[in-house]
């Protein structure tokens, strides 16, 4: 049986669980042949699954819910990440000390479906994002942390496990930085869940396949948490560009492990509710306009985690 898994981004320790499951044969033990498709800029996992290019995708919940509202019935079948690694990282010298100082500053944000948490947060803060005075100026941030290093932005979006480390690596000390974790600001949304198409779930064979897949994947994740360095090396091995570095993947694995630690794979309904509430709070321009129905299920995890 084959499963195609579409990642949200390039091969890195953020997806270590799947690579570990693959490398250590957990998928094989379940009788699965899993093809891990790395993502990249311009790859929208939701689009890939809609076009039949994957069986299951990794996505952030805000964009999955937005897609659902657009008529693409994505369903969360598992949630290996318990908490969010998203944060805003600012240079202290720009004078940002609290969210109140964002006004009239330039902030770097990822788009392409990654912008929803930010927009929700800003609307909760009452800051306009259209560049009008008193609001914030938003930059569509590229793939890296250069805008901060070159002071093109006061703050940029970072993940605890990736870009933040790069800022430190670049030689800026932690004490020169101010960070705002979405978790701490109360605007965290669920990241990196596994999603499938609703209709497929009605097919028992597919359901069966997903049960095996989630079971093996979670085994991979827990293995990765327990052996972070080994997991990082597996990821490094899987990276076909040869441009990833060992040090950075080990750092990333260490940080990712903190985010997956609290999850056994089953979605926590409270987290889901908080995510939806955050997204619905989006003032004049909410990400989703109505309470989603059937956007998640324990159907798979209940069987997988017996």
């Amino acid at each position, binding site marked *: 049986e084959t499963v195609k898994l579409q990642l949200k981004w390039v091969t890195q320790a953020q997806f270590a669980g799947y690579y570990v499951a693959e490398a250590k044969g957990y998928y094989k033990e379940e009788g699965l042949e899993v093809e891990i498709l790395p993502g990249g800029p311009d790859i929208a996992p939701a689009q890939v699954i809609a076009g039949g290019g994957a069986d299951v995708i990794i996505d952030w919940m805000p964009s999955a819910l937005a897609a659902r509202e*657009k008529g693409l019935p994505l369903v969360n079948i598992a949630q290996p990440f318990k908490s969010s690694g998203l944060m805003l990282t600012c240079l202290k010298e720009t004078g940002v000390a609290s969210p109140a100082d964002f006004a009239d500053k330039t902030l770097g944000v990822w788009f392409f479906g990654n912008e929803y948490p930010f927009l929700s947060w800003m609307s909760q803060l009452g800051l306009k994002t259209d560049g009008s005075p008193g609001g914030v100026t938003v930059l*569509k941030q590229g793939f890296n942390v*250069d805008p901060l290093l070159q002071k*093109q932005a006061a703050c940029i979006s970072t993940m605890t496990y990736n870009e933040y480390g790069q800022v430190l690596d670049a030689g800026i000390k932690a004490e020169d930085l101010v960070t705002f974790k979405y978790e701490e600001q109360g605007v965290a949304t669920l990241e990196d869940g596994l999603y499938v198409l609703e209709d497929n779930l009605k097919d028992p064979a597919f359901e069966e396949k997903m049960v095996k897949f989630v079971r093996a994947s979670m085994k991979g994740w827990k293995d990765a948490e327990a052996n972070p360095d080994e997991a990082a090396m597996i990821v490094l091995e899987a990276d076909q560009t040869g441009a990833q570095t060992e040090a950075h993947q080990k750092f990333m694995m260490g940080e990712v492990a903190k985010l997956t630690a609290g999850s056994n794979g089953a979605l926590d309904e409270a987290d889901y509710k908080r995510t939806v509430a955050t997204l619905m709070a989006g003032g004049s321009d909410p990400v989703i306009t109505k309470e989603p129905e059937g956007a998640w299920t324990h159907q798979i995890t209940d069987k997988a985690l017996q």
Partner: protein
Amino acid sequence: MLAAAVLFAWDLSRLAIRRAPRLAQVLVPVLGGLFALGLWEVLTRAFEVPEVILPAPSAIWGAILANLDLLRDDFIQTVLKGAVTGYVMGAAAAVLVAVLVDRVPFLRRGLLPVGNFVSALPIVGIAPIMVMWFGFDWQSKAAVVVVMVFFPVLVNMVAGLAAADRMQRDLMETWGATPTQRLRYLSLPAAMPFLFNGLKIAATLALIGAIVAENFGSPTLGMGFRISTAVGQLALPLVWAEIAVAALAGSVFYGLVSAAERRVTFWHPSQRGK
């Protein structure tokens, strides 16, 4: 039925070309376009192609009407500020360098190979660097466009400057024309058909360059920004609305260059019949 429609459109086009050549210039492409759009609409409906893969033309039209202001602002940012500025600067630079290269044999032999090399740097590599150097706004997009446009114009212009035939060149010699005069009276006019060749290719590159460059950092404005953001949001009708604007802008841009070509190189055999 499809075949019949094709045949009918074909005959109608031939008739139009013979009877009303001016009208045909607009009619035939429009006819072809309507035909393609109709086919597109029918196919997307018949095969129930998901909107997030390829929306139907009717949905795109709806998105255009719903987002006119947005489309206009993006157009100004990307086409007028990014593409056109970069195009003009890049083409002008290429022409100047071509002239320099043609005039100074040392440069021709030294700069051309190096120039080929530098100008062949791919946009994906260039764009982040330009963003780093010129900031997030349209200036960095224009810079990317400059680099993209430069090579095709340069290659064609250098070929064009060498295009004058021997007798035409000999005449200049016998008149003791200075290099500048030879350039002005012979090389430049003779190069025009080639130059326009490059300019036409560059016209489309400029637009695509400005759009793609926005993927590497931009303000929250611009056609490339909108396209990639909307793809992320699965708002494909908006994506295609932007593409429709890009297509229209590109065609008009190309059409303007072609019109200029017709005016400037009316004497070239390829233009005389028109």
